[in-house]
């Protein structure tokens, strides 16, 4: 063995000796679960509001402390809050389903048939720009003050985002995938079912999520104007009786219901789009 080699092997042996010591145990950072992280901000805001009201910084008649809102919710629960929640939820469910179904059919028709798109899409885009409240007087005139105008208003709210999602999703399908379908001699209806629909599903589901969010908003607009049940009615009732706690309780419930329904939609999206090779934000980013 040459001197150099001896020196080299000597160093290696020294390194080996160093590395023989047990390595320090990797420090593992403790992480809060994601759902708990999501609760941090609302909890902090509620705590800040509670403190601000108790310290006299904010007037309790304008912003009741969260503890008082909780009491109001408990009190309302004993006086039929469930029926208000059920009425609003049912309206959203029916209105959203009707609006989304119409939007899926209409969106698919305009995306798949160029003349249909040319005829209808400009009008749909113009109608999309109309604010929700602008529909209310017309619907009250046409349909009275029963359930029909509320459901139609919610359906209108859900229609446009779903229509946009379906239409843009189908029109944005990769031409190359359609070419494969043609190569395997799929009929137009088979192409629609086996290629266009699944390829457009991400955009359709985004449209459905946005549509559901808007359905809740349009539900409030509908119930604010003509309703004797529902969370919108509670909002209106709270304003008329100067009960900010009832207004805030209704707002809180709307937020919870909206988040819950969006969470369900998100779960559906994750289940249906498990095949997507999409970017995931690493936990330690």
């Amino acid at each position: 063995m040459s001197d150099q080699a001896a020196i080299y092997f000597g160093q290696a042996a020294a390194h080996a000796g160093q590395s023989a010591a047990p390595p320090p145990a990797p420090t593992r950072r403790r992480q809060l679960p994601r759902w708990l992280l999501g609760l941090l901000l609302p909890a902090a805001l509620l705590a800040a509001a509670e403190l601000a009201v108790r310290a006299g910084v904010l007037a309790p008649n304008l912003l009741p402390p969260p503890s008082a809102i909780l009491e109001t919710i408990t009190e309302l629960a004993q006086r039929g809050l469930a029926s208000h929640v059920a009425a609003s939820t049912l309206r959203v469910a029916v209105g959203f389903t009707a609006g989304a179904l119409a939007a899926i059919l209409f969106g698919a028709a305009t995306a798949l048939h160029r003349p249909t798109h040319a005829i209808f899409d400009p009008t749909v885009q113009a109608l999309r720009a109309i604010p929700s409240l602008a529909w209310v007087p017309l619907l009250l005139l046409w349909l009275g003050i029963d359930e029909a105008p509320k459901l139609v208003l919610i359906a209108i709210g859900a229609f446009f985002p779903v229509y946009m999602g379906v239409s843009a999703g189908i029109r944005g399908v990769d031409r190359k995938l359609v070419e494969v379908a043609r190569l395997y001699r799929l009929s137009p209806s088979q192409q629609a079912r086996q290629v266009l629909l699944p390829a457009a599903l991400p955009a359709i589901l985004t449209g459905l999520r946005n549509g559901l969010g808007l359905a809740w908003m349009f539900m409030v607009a509908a119930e604010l104007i003509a309703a004797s049940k529902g969370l919108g009615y509670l909002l209106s009732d709270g304003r008329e009786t100067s009960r900010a706690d009832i207004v805030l309780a209704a707002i809180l419930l709307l937020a919870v219901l909206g988040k819950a329904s969006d969470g369900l939609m998100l779960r559906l999206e994750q289940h249906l789009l498990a095949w997507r090779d999409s970017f995931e934000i690493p936990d330690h980013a």
Partner: protein
Amino acid sequence: MLDIRIDSKFYGAQQVLGPLHLHLKQGEVVSLLGASGSGKSTLLSILAGLDRDWCGTLQLDYAPLHGVHPAVSLVFQEPRLFPWLTVAENLRFGLPSSDDCGCDVELLLEETGLQGLGQRLPKQLSGGQAQRAAIARGLMRSPRVLLLDEPFSAVDAFTRMKLQDLLLRIAARHQLTILQVTHDIDEALYLSDRILVLPAGGGPLRGEFSVPAARPRSRSDASVLPLKHRILDLLHLSEQAA
């Protein structure tokens, strides 16, 4: 076997193909070379039946060939697997049922080196595996002619060599006629019985060469070097003319 007569193919006012007459024999491996814009991929689209806006005739064993035909299959440059279907479902795509095609998915997966990967989604495959799956899908209907549009251009050099050998094995086993577009002269020399050079902007073939090397070939076969230089010169001239 496959007789191709293209009178003309235009994109707008620009002629890209024709007049052109090619004849492919049963079991022959033919490579198409040419400058960019010489209509190589367009020719494959025409043969696969995807492009129907052209003038000329196609005949398979003297019978006219119109549109998409199960006897002619095309493998694209990218795997084009449907991301929502598993590998096995991608292979069965478009078939009424797995029993009707006369092909065994598992057998094809094994033949293409994808055994055990049938239930994976495309996102779980490497680039080479995805291209193998695309080739397996191309073989599902037992085609007689397999068209390949630069099928190995997106994979690394080592994977490309393995896929080239796979293609040769498959061609021999299935007695396939293969027409492939490539930009890689070495690949063309390794795989092909014949190499055709297309002109840019239409017209007859600029060159047609039989590859003299016997099979199995060596990748470092020096006997094909003079041919390689001739083809390179021709391509260089074509590029300048374009």
